[in-house]
């Protein structure tokens, strides 16, 4: 891709993908527009940084991840995310008896991986993700979508490691319940 016009056009073609990626992580459309815009600008201004070493989309996603983390860092400084944005996890208490055993134990899902080839499954998964409290979702998506290490997430979100693990646990509990109700339990 030595032709600058072709490079620009290839970069611009990736915009819908970048928007989708950022939306999963940030939710807020304004913030999404900002990070995608910054990413496109950085890419177009820094064409020499690409050099065709990797897939263009992978390279752009790398830039986008940094922009997303910058945004999260800025937001967690600006607004103290309040308690109601992470829930208190009490909804999971109902799953257990007072003695800590399952009230009704989870059943094994049959061949779950076959769902991974179905577009509809990912739509259900995204709906389930949207139901998570904001902060819980953000921590979970940094961990599983951006692939960040817990230590980095704690730092960016200004939470203790213990609290980080609690939020990740709540996210997983909520998601497995949601998928059970809306996909596997059907």
């Amino acid at each position, binding site marked *: 891709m030595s032709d600058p016009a072709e490079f620009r056009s290839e970069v611009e073609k990736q915009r819908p993908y970048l928007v989708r990626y950022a939306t999963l992580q940030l939710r807020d459309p304004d913030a999404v527009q900002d990070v995608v815009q910054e990413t496109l600008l950085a890419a177009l201004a820094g064409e020499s940084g690409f050099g065709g070493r990797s897939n263009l989309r992978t390279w752009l996603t790398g830039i986008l991840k940094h922009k997303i983390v910058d945004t999260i860092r800025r937001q967690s400084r600006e607004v103290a995310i309040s308690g109601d944005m992470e829930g208190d996890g009490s909804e999971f208490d109902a799953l257990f008896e007072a003695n800590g055993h399952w009230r009704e*134990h989870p059943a094994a899902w049959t061949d779950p991986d076959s769902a991974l080839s179905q577009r509809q499954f990912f739509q259900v*998964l995204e709906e389930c993700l949207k139901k998570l409290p904001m902060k819980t979702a953000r921590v979970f998506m940094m961990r599983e979508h951006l692939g960040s290490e*817990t230590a980095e997430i704690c730092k960016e979100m200004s939470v203790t490691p213990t609290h980080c693990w609690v939020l990740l646990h709540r996210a997983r509990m909520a998601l497995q319940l949601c998928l059970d109700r809306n996909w596997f339990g059907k």
Partner: protein
Amino acid sequence: MTLTCKEAARMISEGLDRELPADEKLRLRAHLLVCRGCSALRERMEFLRRALRRNTDRDEA
């Protein structure tokens, strides 16, 4: 000291985010050997990780 399912559920999740201390790992393993519910939960949580990673791969294909 055996685990309750509630404790095991927390440790299954935590094990995806950090290396559990050896004693916790051992207690969790013993619990999973006898508890079908928690074994199913572990499979569900491991599946979630695959699904989220696949979602990214799918986009990048």
